């Protein structure tokens, strides 16, 4: 039972984390190669607060706000640069985060933070909390996609110069995508810290950013269901196959490459194509 709970918790957290990037990269078309930094910010904020006696549920709010605030700053960079330059900028933010955390004694430096308190009701309690957060974020994503905000995101993702000619203030919309997406990553990070109960700078490095990007791309950029499925599957891969854990960067990097090359719309694109073939005369 406890094994299942552990797996389900990692899945829920991974789905939340991947969907938070999907909002930025999938919905709004802004590439990020440093998303793990916001996961890390949420993890550190939540861990410090629960160690100081806060309940995790409460600590997730400052975790989200801090990650979202830093996300807004990084989002500002997205207003200046596009595409490949944005990828490099966000990658830099990811390295910057790890570099800074390493040097902070208050954050445990190289060693990180250990013996993070368990949450109320133990592992089942954490699973509940993770599933609630994941469900709420899924609902938020579905709602946004149906709203005019989602419509605006879609047009920005397609062609931001054209979006401007519809009277869309592209900068504000992009910033909002970064804020919501990075705040979501902050919550995922807070949950992760209390799932693993030990965090260090290396838990939030480049490999994690590539991993979460692989989930989004393999699932199908922008597809809520596809990304959720990919996140669920890819997050459990290292548990079942030891070599995946050893060659993470290689495997997730190849997955990104192969998907981009052979099925640019990911799982969701493949399923849709099969469905159409099956249902067309």
């Amino acid at each position: 039972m406890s094994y299942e709970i552990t797996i389900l918790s990692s899945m829920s957290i991974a789905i939340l984390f991947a969907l938070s990037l999907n909002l930025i990269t999938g919905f709004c078309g802004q590439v990020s190669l440093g998303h793990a930094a916001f996961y890390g910010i949420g993890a550190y904020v939540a861990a410090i607060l629960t160690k100081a006696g806060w309940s995790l549920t409460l600590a997730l709010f400052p975790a989200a706000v801090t990650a979202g605030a830093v996300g807004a700053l990084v989002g500002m960079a997205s207003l200046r640069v596009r595409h490949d330059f944005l990828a490099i900028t966000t990658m830099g933010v990811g390295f910057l985060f790890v570099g800074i955390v390493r040097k902070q004694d208050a954050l445990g430096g190289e060693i990180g933070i250990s013996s993070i308190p368990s949450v109320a009701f133990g592992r089942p309690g954490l699973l509940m909390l993770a599933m609630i957060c994941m469900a709420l974020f899924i609902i938020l994503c579905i709602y946004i996609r149906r709203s005019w905000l989602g419509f605006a995101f879609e047009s920005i993702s397609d062609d931001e110069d054209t979006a401007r000619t519809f009277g869309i203030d592209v900068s504000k919309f992009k910033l909002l995508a970064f804020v919501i997406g990075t705040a979501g990553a902050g919550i995922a990070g807070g949950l992760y810290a209390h799932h693993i109960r030990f965090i260090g700078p290396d838990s939030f490095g480049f490999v994690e950013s590539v991993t979460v990007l692989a989930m989004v791309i393999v699932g199908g950029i922008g597809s809520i269901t596809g990304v959720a499925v990919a996140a669920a599957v890819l997050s459990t891969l290292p548990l079942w196959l030891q070599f995946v854990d050893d060659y993470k960067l290689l495997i997730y990097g190849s997955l990104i490459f192969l998907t981009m090359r052979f099925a640019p719309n990911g799982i969701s694109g493949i399923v849709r194509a099969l469905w159409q073939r099956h249902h067309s005369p």
Partner: protein
Amino acid sequence: MTLLDIQDVSVSFGGVDAVRNVSLTVEEHQLLGFIGPNGAGKTTMMRIIMGMVRPQQGSVVFRGMDITGLSIHHRVQLGLALAQQIVKPLHTLSMLDNVAIAAGSRYMSSPLWAFLNTDRTQARKRARRLLEFVGIADAADAMPSELPLGYIKRMEVARSLALEPRLLLLDEPLAGLNQTEAHALADLIVSLVNATRSVLLIEHNIGEVSRICPQIYVQVNGEPLIQDTSEKIMASPALRNAYLGDH
């Protein structure tokens, strides 16, 4: 009443003077033709008016407001819309939704307002009427990539109309249309001009321009040449020279 008042604008791209000391006004209730040979700086003028290009010199006043430094979305909200020469449809959206998103422009005036609004049926209804208006309702559900240029150009016109502009800027809307289609769209353009809407029309199809526009402005090599009634312009040797000289 003057709707748009451009004073002495200049733009150069890395040493190439695309527009030099141009002043141009558009009155309320006016349909002004804008012609000139290739590279005359016509598109650049439209881009200056929309705010896609900042003039290095000069000013643009719209509805009595100096908009020279204003961003594109503010200008759209003030009542400017441009149907671009090189149409960039959103490829992930159907033709209908390409127009519908512009029809819902007011919902997207801020991210929060956009978040709170979910109903797309009104915008789609209006989009469908606009597609009918420009004569391409049959392609409403098609994707832009499946259609010929003539359809895309008319979708672009519908899309700019969906913004309910006070001044509609059309950059070669008849390009890619056959003679019958061009004639029909030209007639529609005339019907767009009313007490609250003016049109500035760039066209290479001089036959149609002179037919529908009472007034024509001619620009050559980035500089104003003449502006007069279309009869006088068509009879003017200067016009002939401008086109012959360039080709």
